[in-house]
C-alpha cells in the first residue's frame, strides 16, 4: 500500500508538487499520468525516499518514510526513468550487489537472483557486461533489480519507453501479472498502455493532482451525452426526439451503417443520465422504431487527459 498525504516539494522558486494526496491499495496497477514537467517524477522520487518532501507524508505499508526510511524503502522496488545502471558490471554481479544492499541473506541470494532474472527475461545475459546490452535488455536488468527482493510495492517510471513492440508487449504482461498481488504505480506517456493495464488513473498537472478515479468513471465523467442508433425515418425520429422533455438538444443524422440513424443526445441539465436513458429507450421502442444502440458517450483517455490537464493549465495561468 502507498499513501501520500499532502505532499509538496519546491526547487528554489519552482513549486514542483503541490499538496498531492492519494492512496494505492495492494493488488492494483494504478496509472500515473501528466504532461512533461507536471511533477510525476518528483512525486515518484518522494514515494521512493530519494527526495524528502517539504511538507506532507509518505507511507509505504505500515512504515512512514520520514520515521523509518530503511524499512519503508525496503518495501519498494523502483525503476527510474532511463534505467540508470552500473555499466561496467556484469549483470549477475550487479544483481548480486543489489541483493546484498537490499539485505537478502546469502542462502537466499542465488534463488532471489534466479527468480528476478527469470521474471525479467534475462536468460543467457547474466554474464554480459551491462554496458554491452541493448536498451531493451538494460530495461530488463532495471526491472530485475526492482524485483529482486520481491517487494510488495513497485514504482515504475516509464518502463516501456524506447522498447520495441515485442518487448513492450512482454513488459505489459509482466506488469499485469505483478499487479495481481502487488501495489504497482505505473507512469507512462502511452495512454493505450494505461488503458490496457490500469483500472485506476491519477493525473498530475502543474504539480497538482487533477484527477484520481477509476478509468471507467473518468471516461464517463460529468459528460451527460447519450449516443443513440435507431432504425427509422429521419423526420419521424427527429420529431420524436424533439418532443422529449428530458433532452436539452440533440444532433441527428444518417449513421455510418446503412439504414441506421445516429444521434448525440444532450440531457436536460439537472436530470440523472440513467433516467434520461430509460425515458428515451421507452419512447423509441414505444413509437415502433428499432432501437439498435443507446449508451453513454465515453470519452477516450486521451480526451480525459487533455481536459484534465487543460483545466489545470488554465487555472495556473489565471
Amino acid at each position, binding site marked *: 500500500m502507498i499513501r501520500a498525504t499532502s505532499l509538496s516539494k519546491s526547487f528554489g522558486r519552482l513549486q514542483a508538487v503541490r499538496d498531492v494526496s492519494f492512496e494505492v491499495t495492494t493488488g492494483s496497477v494504478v496509472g500515473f499520468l501528466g504532461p512533461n514537467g507536471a511533477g510525476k517524477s518528483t512525486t515518484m522520487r518522494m514515494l521512493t525516499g530519494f527526495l*524528502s518532501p517539504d511538507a506532507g507524508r509518505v507511507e509505504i505499508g505500515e512504515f512512514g518514510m520520514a520515521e523509518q526510511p*530503511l524499512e519503508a524503502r525496503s518495501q519498494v522496488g523502483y525503476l527510474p526513468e532511463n534505467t*540508470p545502471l552500473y555499466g561496467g558490471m556484469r549483470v549477475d554481479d550487479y544483481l548480486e550487489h543489489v541483493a546484498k544492499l*537490499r539485505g537478502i541473506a546469502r542462502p537466499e541470494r542465488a534463488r532471489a537472483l534466479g527468480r528476478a532474472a527469470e521474471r525479467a527475461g534475462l536468460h543467457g545475459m547474466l554474464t554480459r557486461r551491462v554496458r554491452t546490452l541493448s536498451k531493451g535488455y538494460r530495461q530488463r536488468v532495471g526491472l530485475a533489480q526492482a524485483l529482486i527482493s520481491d517487494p510488495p510495492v513497485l514504482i515504475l517510471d516509464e518502463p516501456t519507453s524506447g522498447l520495441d513492440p515485442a518487448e513492450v508487449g512482454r513488459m505489459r504482461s509482466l506488469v499485469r501479472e505483478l499487479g495481481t498481488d502487488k501495489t504497482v504505480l505505473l507512469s507512462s506517456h502511452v495512454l493505450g498502455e494505461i488503458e490496457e493495464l490500469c483500472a485506476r488513473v491519477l493525473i498530475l498537472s502543474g504539480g497538482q493532482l487533477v484527477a484520481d478515479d477509476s478509468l471507467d468513471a473518468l471516461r464517463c465523467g460529468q459528460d451527460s451525452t447519450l449516443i443513440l442508433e435507431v432504425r427509422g425515418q429521419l423526420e419521424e425520429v427527429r420529431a420524436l426526439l424533439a418532443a422529449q422533455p428530458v433532452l436539452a438538444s440533440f444532433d441527428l443524422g444518417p449513421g455510418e451503417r446503412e439504414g441506421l440513424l445516429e444521434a448525440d443526445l444532450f440531457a436536460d441539465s439537472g436530470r440523472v443520465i440513467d433516467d434520461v436513458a430509460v425515458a428515451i429507450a421507452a419512447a423509441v421502442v414505444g413509437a415502433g422504431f428499432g432501437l439498435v444502440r443507446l449508451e453513454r458517450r465515453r470519452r477516450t483517455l486521451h480526451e480525459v487527459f487533455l481536459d484534465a490537464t487543460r483545466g489545470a493549465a488554465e487555472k495556473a495561468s489565471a
Partner: protein
Amino acid sequence: MNRFLAVVRREALEPMEGAAFWVAGAVLAVLAHLTFFLVGVPFGARPFPGLFASGFASLDIAFAWAPTILAGLVPALTMGAWAEERRSGTEELLLTWPVSTLALVAGKFCGRLLSLVVLLLAVYLPMVAVVRWLGPLDLGTVFAASVGLLWMSAACVAIATLVSACTRDQLVAFLVSTLALLALLGLGLLARIAPGDLAERLWSASPQAHFLETGARGLVDTGDFVHGAGIVALCLGLTWVKIERRRVG
C-alpha cells in the same frame, strides 16, 4: 554490516573497471621506481641521491615522495566515487535502496582506500624486496612508516571523496582534489616563510609535520593518528551532510 561490506567491495573494485586506475597505476609505478632508484630527493633540508648512488638500504626516498605521489594518485582513484553516480543517475537508485547514508559514505571511503592500498602494495612491495635483498633493511622502520602512510592515505581519500560528492563531473573532482592535496603540502612550505604563531599552526596542519618528519622516519606518533582521524571524520561528516542535503533537492 553486510550492506556496508557490499558497498566497500563495490567501491574497491569500481576504479578497476575504468582506464584511469590502470593509467594511474602505471604512472605511479614508473614515478616511484624512477625517484627511488635514480632521482632520490634532490631538494629540501636533507637532499639525498637515488638508491643506486647512495647505496643505503633504506626506503626513505620512497616515503619522502609519498605525499606528492598521493596528491595525484588519490584523486584519480576517488574522483568517480560520488560524481559518477550523480552524472549517470545511478545515485537515484543507490539512495532508494535500504542502506543508510552513513553506510554508503563510510563504505565508499573504505572501498576507495582499499583499492589505493592494493595499488601501493603492488608498487612498493617489490621495492621492499629489492632493498632487503641488497642490504640490511630495518623492517620496524618500514612498518612504522607504512602505518604513517596509511593514516595520510586515509586523510587524502577522505578529502577527495568529499570533493567528489560536491560535483557531477569527474574531471572537476580530479582537478579540485589534486589542488586541495597539493595545497595541503604547500602548508608545510608556507610554514617556513610565515611569521611565528601562524607558522606553527600551518606546520601543525601539514602532512610534513604528521608524516614526513615522523612516520616517514619510522616514528609512530599518536598525534599523527589523531590528525589523520580528525581529517577523515571531518570530511566524511561533511560528505554525509552533502548527500543528505541531496534528498532535500
